């Protein structure tokens, strides 16, 4: 309950204090961990490769991957919505697979490659999925959008690998790139503005399939 919580509250007054986050500042680069003060008994070092860049952090064990990204690496593109795995706003790609970064501990990902929305594309150099979301107006307020886009990139990878879904009629056939498939596969990302149909159109365009493909 030290300076770090004060920092969090000043930035995000609605966040409850005491959530999992360390009081040790982020360390970038290598081999400086020994210099970090051991401010909590449970501080643990973890190496991550975030958007292609090696990062060494010393974290309170309670720190979620989401909080490590946002509060320690200041990659605030990844959003905290429910913090309970229900909304999908915190979706990132870890070793190429989409997961909810709020429901995993940073220390559980030693050596992992993490891709956030900042790593997918940047202003002037958008990822095709980002460009398609813009083109199709796949958002309104934009809060869920980084999670939607990371999830959508993950979905296309899963379809490419032939992973079936709940709505795949034939489990052993290659999955279709239909609107019904995309809606089912994106069901872990909630959009309270209701941009769903435009999101499906954006993903469909990137997948190279016909917009509004048959269910």
């Amino acid at each position, binding site marked *: 309950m030290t300076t770090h919580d004060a920092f969090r509250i000043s930035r995000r007054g609605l966040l409850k204090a*005491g*959530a*999992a986050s360390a009081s040790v500042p982020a360390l970038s680069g290598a081999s400086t961990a020994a210099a970090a003060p051991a401010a*909590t*008994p*449970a501080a*643990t070092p973890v190496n991550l490769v975030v958007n292609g860049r090696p990062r060494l952090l010393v974290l*309170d*064990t*309670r720190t*979620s991957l989401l909080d490590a990204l946002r509060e320690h690496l200041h990659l605030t593109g990844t959003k905290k919505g429910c*913090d*309970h*795995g229900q909304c*999908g706003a915190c*979706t990132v790609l870890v070793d190429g*697979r*989409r*997961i*909810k970064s709020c*429901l*995993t*501990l940073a*220390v*559980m990902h*030693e050596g992992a490659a993490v891709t956030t929305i900042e790593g997918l594309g940047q202003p002037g150099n958008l990822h095709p999925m980002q460009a398609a979301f813009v083109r199709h107006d796949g958002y309104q307020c934009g809060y869920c959008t980084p999670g939607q886009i990371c*999830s959508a990139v*993950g*979905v296309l990878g*899963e379809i490419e*690998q*032939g*992973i*079936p*879904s*709940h709505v*795949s009629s034939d*489990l*052993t056939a290659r999955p279709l790139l239909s609107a019904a498939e995309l*809606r*089912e*596969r*994106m*069901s*872990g*990302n909630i959009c309270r503005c209701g941009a769903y149909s435009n999101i499906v159109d954006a993903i469909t365009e990137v997948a190279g399939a016909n917009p509004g493909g048959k269910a």
Partner: protein
Amino acid sequence: MKSFSYERASSPAQAIAAAARTPGARFIAGGTNLLDLMKLEIETPAHLIDVNGLGFERIEPTDDGGLRIGALVRNTDLAAHATVRRDYAVLSRALLAGASGQLRNKATTAGNLLQRTRCPYFYDTQMACNKRQPGSGCTAIGGVNRQHAIVGTSDACIATHPSDMAVAMRVLDAAVETMRPDGTRRTIPIADFHRLPGRTPQVESALARGELITSVRLPAPVGGRHFYAKVRDRASYAFALVSVAAIVQRDGTGRVALGGVAHKPWRIEAAERELPRGAGAVTAALLADARPSEHNAFKVTLVERTLDAVLADARS
């Protein structure tokens, strides 16, 4: 979240030794349920043993024609495995009906079996719950209990087991393989793995303290047509009100297990003899001892209608 210490285990022996040595220790793999409960301080482990490095990620054939699924196989990978899709389709279907893509990428086979109820009164630490705080009472009995169990309940607890995967494993006669704290191994039939609440609803499985699941074994495929029908309040990403796992043979015989109705996957083998007589007869036998609460009597009808739809599909 309460503070905890953390270690990564690199072998099963190291993991069980750490669990035996450390009071309040828990294994963590996917973490999608445990961390959620830790944020709410419903689970407060003093020590976490990360078992992700134990190498239990393989799916391999067994000598008797079955399949051994490593405890750490992710739900996505199990659902997508070619042999599972072909020979154990009910298991693929059940997995794909559960959670969301992101969660299935993280959640493991063993963790899915051990996930805890989503009873809202278990989650609300202001409410009495015999599962969360033994002896405090059950708010669900007499509360809003539309989602709750209708059979196998007790005066102490009417929670359901939330897993879809476990219902398919029950209909497939799976067995849970473990390593005990003394290093010996044992095999627990899935029928005996989950417990009814009785007077100790906080005891949910047959696992001893510090016992580690290493794999789940499926017997040789039994053929037939496989179904997993899940009825829920929205089309995706919700827990079951009722689910039916079924394997139906060409001659109309088969197996049926239910989800969403009890503290464990609900199967009564004797009820399956009624399959040729239709969904009504099977449901009557499966739910003969049902004791619905104020808001969930509809589940009895819903089971019959869902099973009827499955059997109609099987005949088509």
